[in-house]
């Protein structure tokens, strides 16, 4: 707005100049024009938010399957389709002691299976078959196993009157896949796992999901049924694709392909 000069008459009226009004209207127009992009941004933001949760969809919250991931704070997975019909399956059983549900016995005739204490056995107790070859058996049954190869271990507490040739028969459900005899007069010595000695019975392929180890009394002495441990083993196939020997030096190059079964 124009200012009055000191020597101007007091009656003189000052008004807005054309330039002042132009600037004012320009600023007003700019302010209004800025609202347009704001509305566009807001509507796009809203569209993104509304796409996230639809009112007609049921969203499924499924826990992560890894215990450690969940322990370290992993949240449940949110999906718009059901990825699981129930809670995650329990981890597979890899060890059966003689007190666990996977252990069963067949005792023919008189009662021959008894529980005996032995500080070297798993959990300090084991089942003893008093010998005689009556056809008594003990079974360690692992169920719901993924198909694959499993290393099987057995343990027992040694004693001088134990059988030197206790038979272990390994089944893939009902099909026999292995047979081993082990000397139970001595400590198992193939592996030391979690403070316990284990005897290796071998690596066996399991396709039915059920691995069964049978201990029978067809032996010369007391037969001990204590605990069986299994461990899934990934067996890789190695295929040699090429073998080249250099003509100029001593180097040899080998080309192989590794694949999981």
């Amino acid at each position, binding site marked *: 707005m124009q200012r009055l000069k000191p020597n101007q008459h007091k009656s003189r*009226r*000052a008004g807005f100049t054309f330039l002042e009004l132009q600037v004012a209207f320009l600023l007003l127009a700019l302010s209004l024009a800025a609202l347009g992009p704001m509305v566009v941004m807001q509507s796009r933001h809203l569209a993104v938010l509304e796409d996230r949760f639809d009112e007609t969809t049921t969203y499924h*919250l499924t*826990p*992560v399957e890894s*215990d450690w991931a969940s322990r370290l704070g992993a949240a449940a997975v949110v999906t718009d389709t059901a990825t699981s019909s*129930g*809670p995650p399956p329990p981890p597979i059983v890899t060890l059966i002691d003689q007190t666990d549900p996977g252990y069963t016995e067949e005792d023919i005739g008189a009662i021959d299976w008894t529980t005996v204490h032995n500080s070297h056995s798993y959990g300090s107790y084991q089942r003893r078959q008093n010998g005689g070859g009556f056809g008594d058996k003990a079974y360690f049954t692992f169920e719901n196993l993924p198909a694959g190869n499993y290393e099987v271990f057995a343990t027992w507490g040694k004693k001088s009157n134990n059988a030197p040739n206790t038979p272990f028969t390994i089944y893939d459900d009902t099909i026999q896949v292995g047979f081993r005899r082990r000397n139970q007069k001595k400590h198992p010595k193939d592996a030391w796992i979690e403070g316990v000695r284990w005897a290796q019975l071998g690596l066996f392929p399991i396709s039915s999901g059920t691995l069964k180890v049978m201990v029978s009394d067809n032996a010369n002495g007391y037969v001990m049924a204590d605990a069986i441990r299994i461990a899934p083993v990934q067996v890789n196939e190695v295929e040699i694709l090429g073998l080249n020997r250099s003509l100029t030096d001593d180097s040899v190059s080998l080309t192989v392909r590794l694949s999981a079964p």
Partner: protein
Amino acid sequence: MINCNHTRISRRCGFTLMEVVVVGALMSLLLMLFSAAWQGFARPTSSAVRRARLIREAGLLVEALSRDVGGSLAEQPLGNKETSRLVGHTVIAGNELRLCFDGDPADEIANWALPDTVITWTLTGDRIVRSNLLSGAVITVADSVDTFTVVDLPAAVQIQVQFSDGELTRDLTLEAVVP
């Protein structure tokens, strides 16, 4: 407009009162026209803000719930993986969800008492509140909630929530896998 280039002192320059009045009248007319356009502009804008707020509340609810049903108690992310695991749930009166987290030592059984930790999800006023029954810690998870319904399903719970702000409503249905 009066031309101020002439130097006579008595001559005033700038717009006359009549000019400003005419311009003011024209501006009023323009503003009336503009206000009609504003009706169509401001109302959707206001509605969009409220809709966005309801969706944000829904998002907060989903994120908080996904922490609890993720498998372990969010307050204790470290330590043995067997402790603080989600081991059980129960639904009270169709509007309260209780989750039981295993204590230390872990027994994988929902005892609903120490050393286990019990977390409840309830509707208090227009807010969904997550409470730790043992420590007394209470957290508001979501606001502007109209209804909160929990239905027990086999190995899962279905949670239906309706958010509202004035006449605006938004429904959310969740199905959480819980032991």
